[in-house]
């Protein structure tokens, strides 16, 4: 049996990272013989981002990218469906217009925001916050929050 070797990308701390498209969420297509492009060659509608393994979205998981000013920078296709807003209308708007904390024990909006600030500015590990879409009740998502980039930002992956 033969095993193919492949390079594992790591971040500045030596942790393995995964690349994914900021729109379709899939890993980038190999581009042999072509110059590397930041634009996803599969869907053409997202930029290729990186996040630590375990934080990066898995197949079908909706997610958002938020910068250190708490403004939405990217919304995946699945998250567009989930939140009912296209990315083109969501960018440059504050995250609190779309998501707020849903857990009673951690219900202050600052908790979500502080987690996002930490993720967007420091190297701390992922945190989980229970959130719900603004204006929706009875719908909750376990949001996995961690760093992503480049440039540096916070990734919010919405899980069940």
């Amino acid at each position, binding site marked *: 049996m033969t095993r193919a070797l492949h390079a594992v990308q790591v971040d500045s701390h030596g942790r393995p990272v995964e690349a994914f498209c*900021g*729109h379709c969420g899939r890993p980038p297509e190999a581009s042999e013989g072509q*110059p590397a*492009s*930041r*634009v996803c*060659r599969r869907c*053409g*509608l*997202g*930029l290729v*981002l990186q996040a630590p393994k375990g934080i990066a979205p898995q197949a079908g998981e909706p997610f958002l*990218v938020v*910068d250190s000013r708490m403004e939405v*920078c*990217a*919304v995946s296709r699945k998250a567009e469906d989930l939140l009912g807003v296209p*990315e*083109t209308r*969501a*960018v*440059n708007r504050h995250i609190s217009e779309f998501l707020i904390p849903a857990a009673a024990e951690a219900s202050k909006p600052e908790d979500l925001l502080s987690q996002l600030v930490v993720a967007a500015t420091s190297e701390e590990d992922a945190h989980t916050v229970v959130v719900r879409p603004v204006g929706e009740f009875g719908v909750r998502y376990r949001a996995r929050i961690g760093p992503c*980039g480049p*440039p540096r*930002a916070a990734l919010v992956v919405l899980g069940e």
Partner: protein
Amino acid sequence: MRTLKTSEAAALLNVSPNTLRAWERRFGYPRPQRSSGQHRLYIHGEVAALRDALQEGLSISSAVSRAREALTADTDSLVGALSSFELERADLAMEAALALRSLERSVEEVLLPTFDELSSRAGVDSAPWAFAARWADGWLRRAQRLSPAPTRNVSVLVGDATRDELDPDALAVRALELFLARAGARVLSLPVTGVSGLADVLEAHPPTFVVIAGAFVPDDHVARWAYQARSAAGPLPVMLFRRPAPSGSVRATARALPEGPFEAHRLALGALDETPAQKENRFQSGARRVTAARRRVGT
């Protein structure tokens, strides 16, 4: 202004031509012009701004937003130049805008928004407004003088119903005239207050259609002028630009054009293409109709 074919723009952005067309549909950017053969022509400055923004962006949407912001810097620059009464700097700001856009878009996206900003800052009856408006009027007239000779068999009579060059609508009217001229039409602009001798002018320059532009001159004066024009040139399509539709019979026949001069010039010329047979008839009989109409009214 440097333009790029689809393949060249795609190569600069390191994406496929299909991706570029998908961005145009989804983000409305970059927005290509069309060549005479209807092929897409991208403005180099727009594509370069997007390429730079993509390097720093987290999504295509945010990169497009950043690229658009970079382009609006020209408006800020022109507002700053005119607010500090520096005409040379204003000329340079328009030069910079023209490096990134077509003349039409430079006027519509930089020059006219600048005057929206100036009017809200100083008011349209102020000396700073007059200073800036005179400069812009001169700039637009100079651009029209430099337009290529007419290439279409279309002659537009613009009935100017603005007060003067300081009227808030006057720049948009000048812009419309410029766009029509650059689209190959012959443009004749006359104030609607001058009725005497109108028939003589229209005999020399038989119009294909009439645009009544501006809202300052009252309806009864405009009606008198329009009657004289119709008597001299026969029944012609009448369009209204930056003027509310009057009450009475004219309302049924006059077509209101959009507020933006680019869209207005496109629709005005497009309207002529709606009935090719009528258009052909109009072109051939334009001069004959003027003479016959004059005979009817005994002028």
